[in-house]
């Protein structure tokens, strides 16, 4: 193990002797333009992005209304009874009428 540790240390030492690949130069013009363009578009998005919270609240409100409607529809036995009564009356009438 010690011998491997020593080899690794020597490998790092040798790697540090390597000259730097290429000294950083000036920022290339096209890259600068790309970054600035993205920055500008980000700014316009954030200015127009004030609608996002409103939309989120609207969506949540709509979902809540939908859930309440479903719950109300499924938990109204009175309606079911009324419907059953209408059906029964209709069937009786059909049977009794010539």
């Amino acid at each position: 193990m010690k011998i491997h540790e020593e080899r690794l240390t020597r490998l790092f030492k040798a790697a540090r002797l390597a000259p730097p690949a290429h000294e950083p130069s000036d920022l290339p013009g096209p890259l600068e333009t790309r970054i600035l363009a993205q920055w500008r578009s980000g700014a316009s998005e954030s200015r127009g992005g004030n609608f996002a919270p409103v939309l989120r609240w609207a969506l949540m409100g709509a979902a809540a209304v939908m859930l309440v409607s479903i719950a109300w529809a499924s938990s109204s036995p009175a309606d079911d009874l009324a419907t059953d009564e209408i059906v029964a009356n209709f069937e009786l009438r059909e049977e009794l009428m010539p």
Partner: protein
Amino acid sequence: MSEARHADLAQFVSRARRRDEAAARILMDRLYPLVLKIVRSHLPWRTSEEDLVQTVFMKVFTHLDQYEGRVPVEHWVSRIAVNTCLSALKAEKARPELRWADLSEEGQAVVEGLVSGTETDGGTQAVAARDLVQELLARLRPADRLVLTLLHLEERSVAEVKALTGWSEALVKVRAFRARRKLRKLLSKLEPDHENS
């Protein structure tokens, strides 16, 4: 001189916050060498250097409001750059294990030199050694790779690594220790006697 430069950069940061494009250009020009150096040291495989530099600058500009001026602008930007590279490294696919046959002739010579105890000169052998280290580091987890690059290739102190990554000093030390152990194992597998056995 250095303080004046920091104050100068901080002034451009506050101007850029007010969407001053000229100030943003100056900031980019001044910070580009620093960002490029960090990106080159931690560039994931098959990732464009320019794309990563662009991502770093976009993060800098997006978070300009969060710069409180407690540290020099360069330190703040370095931390963003290091963390951006770390995220990019995390997205990189794991590479297959490095084998003796995968090494270039120069790489094989470096390994043989390590086994025989021959000292490496500073020329092509050093470049081959650096390439070999990069190949081995690429097989480690991103955080392990980052900590070893910062400590052993860039020769930064634990305190510097802590400042750059935001990790605690203990975490830096433990990660470095474990990463080094993994790297040692990878290197030992490359040695010719191991290959033959």
